[in-house]
């Protein structure tokens, strides 16, 4: 009879297992002793501080997450049509993608906008475009998320003005502006002004919303783009919360009381394919934020301590090779988001490593969420993975790692200082480079790319935005500038510049400016005159 090996001598597929490149080492099995470091009450119950398991006691039994697909391309008419289509398909919230010129404060006829018009999102130059974008969609009844940062004051002003034209009261509006400039310096790169001026605009919006728009999320503090840029799960958690703390502090420094604004702070994260690590990340995030808000900032309203967040499945993990495999990746990532307890979710389309998504691919993406919601049963009990030795241990590990980063950033004087030093950018650049090296060496498997490669590729039909869009938009802009009252525009732009130089809140004058049909580019130029422009240091 063959001699029985001791279990510790049994060979395994790999010498070491981990959650990913620069990730957390994973043991063969987890046992009750692994939970010894977790303090009494840290896991707790859903809806109870520190909200590890969910912010609501009923989880998805009360209400499912919002299925919110990020969309926008071409002219407003095309996007308006896509929105109406998604609405008919059962989507319960909107998420607007703006083209890059709108995000970076240029009109569609600016030389830097050449080739970009209508590409990464919808072209919005003026209030006229915003009004057309929402034609036939009652803004009083929907909830809208807008991915807009440097130009958030302008776009929020346009949204308010468009809603008012429809007869809606701004105090009743539901939605979110991303308004998270710090991560733009780290990863997404749609900044315009320097950090100090930008922080002032961010907090202008937050205090304006706190006073005038009680149902509006004034900021969506985003880890998504840092993750896309290469951050690990623990880095994503740490750097996002560090940015969040910087915004809370900036609001307190303006004299705002923490519970007056913090309940309207929201977050945005990525979901990767390592399902269990992602679930642990979301649970850890809720726990850390609750503790920080209570212990550090003295919040007393539980809503100030609740981490509410949107999730998008991760774009970087989509492969151009064998694109249909991406449907499976997106499914795993969406499952992670749901197990993790997100409030809203965007699922990516399988063709996004090739081009902008086609209608068919968008439908499959939305259906993925619907299958999870209605067929899988995972939404029928709250935090179904809670109590798993591995999940609880991993949640704790991510919390510890994230807290170590946060302490490091504290020592530097906070997120803004850490960004100015290039610390966060460098940490992410290193992770991203290590990841690519691991993929190139085969240590990190990407199915269809460095393993299970096929010769013949299936190339799906993709969406194309023609040059026609640019021509149409530029012509529309030209006509607008002819037809509007230009004297009024010049006056209001002067006022924008002088308010920017003062410490008055920018939002009221923004609303006046957009109502006079001043354009995104013109208003941004007025702000550039007041604030100057930012140029990034190159950190490889």
């Amino acid at each position: 009879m063959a001699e029985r090996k001791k279990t510790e001598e049994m060979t395994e597929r790999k010498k070491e297992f981990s959650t990913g490149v620069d990730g957390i080492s994973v043991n063969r099995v987890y046992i009750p002793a692994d939970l010894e470091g977790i303090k009494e009450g840290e896991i707790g119950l859903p809806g109870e501080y520190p909200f590890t398991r969910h912010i609501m006691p009923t989880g998805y039994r009360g209400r499912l997450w919002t299925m919110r697909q990020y969309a926008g391309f071409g002219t407003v008419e095309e996007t308006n049509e896509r929105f109406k289509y998604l609405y008919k398909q059962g989507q319960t919230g909107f998420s607007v993608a703006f083209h890059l010129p709108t995000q970076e404060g240029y009109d569609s006829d600016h030389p830097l906008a050449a080739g970009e018009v209508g590409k990464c999102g919808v072209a919005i130059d003026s209030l006229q475009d915003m009004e057309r974008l929402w034609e036939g969609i009652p803004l009083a009844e929907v909830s809208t998320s807008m991915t807009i940062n440097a130009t958030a004051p302008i776009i929020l002003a346009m949204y308010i003005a468009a809603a008012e034209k429809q007869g809606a009261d701004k105090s009743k509006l539901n939605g979110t502006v991303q308004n998270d400039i710090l991560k733009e310096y780290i990863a997404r790169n749609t900044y315009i002004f320097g950090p100090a001026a930008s922080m002032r605009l961010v907090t202008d919006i937050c205090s304006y919303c706190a006073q005038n728009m009680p149902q509006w999320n004034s900021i969506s503090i985003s880890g998504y783009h840092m993750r896309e840029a290469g951050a690990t799960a623990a880095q994503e958690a740490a750097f996002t919360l560090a940015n969040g703390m910087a915004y809370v502090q900036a609001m307190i420094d303006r004299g705002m009381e923490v519970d007056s604004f913090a309940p309207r702070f929201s977050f945005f994260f990525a979901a990767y394919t390592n399902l269990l690590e992602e679930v642990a990340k979301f649970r850890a995030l809720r726990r850390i934020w609750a503790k920080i808000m209570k212990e550090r900032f003295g919040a007393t309203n539980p809503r100030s301590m609740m981490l509410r967040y949107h999730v998008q499945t991760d774009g970087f993990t989509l492969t151009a090779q064998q694109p249909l495999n991406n449907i499976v990746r997106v499914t795993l990532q969406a499952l992670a988001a749901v197990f993790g307890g997100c409030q809203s979710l965007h699922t990516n389309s399988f063709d996004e490593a090739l081009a902008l998504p086609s209608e068919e691919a968008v439908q499959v993406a939305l259906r993925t969420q619907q299958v999870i919601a209605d067929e899988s049963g995972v939404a029928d009990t709250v935090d179904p993975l809670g109590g798993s030795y591995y999940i609880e241990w991993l949640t704790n590990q991510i919390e510890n790692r994230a807290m170590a980063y946060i302490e490091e950033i504290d020592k530097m004087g906070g997120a803004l200082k850490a960004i100015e030093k290039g610390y966060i950018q460098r940490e992410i650049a290193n992770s991203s480079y290590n990841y690519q090296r691991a993929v190139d060496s085969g240590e990190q498997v990407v199915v269809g790319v460095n393993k299970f490669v096929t010769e013949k590729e299936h190339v799906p039909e993709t969406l194309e935005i023609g040059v026609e869009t640019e021509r149409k938009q530029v012509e529309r802009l030209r006509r607008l500038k002819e037809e509007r009252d230009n004297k009024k525009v010049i006056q209001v732009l002067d006022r924008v510049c002088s308010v920017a130089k003062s410490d008055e809140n920018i939002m009221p004058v923004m609303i006046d400016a957009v109502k006079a049909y001043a354009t995104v580019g013109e208003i941004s130029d007025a702000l550039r005159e007041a604030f100057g422009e930012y140029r990034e240091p190159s950190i490889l």
Partner: protein
Amino acid sequence: MDRKIRVLVAKPGLDGHDRGAKVVARGLRDAGMEVIYLGLRLTPEQIAESAMQEDVDVVGLSCLSGAHMALFPKIVKLLQEKGGKDILVIGGGIIPEKDIPKLEEAGLARIFGPGTPLEEIAKFIETTFAEEGE
């Protein structure tokens, strides 16, 4: 070549997705090349101008916003006008399959899509210059 291959990596247009450009820049540097990372939000003119001033052998362009057809060929054309017709121009990003032949026709030496190993890019550059040296 008796000196290190000089490469300029840049992002034309307004696209801020710089993960790929940065990883490639670092990869080529680790492969022994001299790399200048020019950064983002650049016009074709700025990129061509810098390429000439820095006397580079290679220009690497990255674009994920869909503006590549408007930007990449223009940069090649500007380089030719400025006397940089020998500069090898390569590109990457989210480039639909059917655009690749058009870009190659416009003078791009090669398009490297998502999932390309760093070594493949370095080898392509090295081989090109090794052949020229023969």
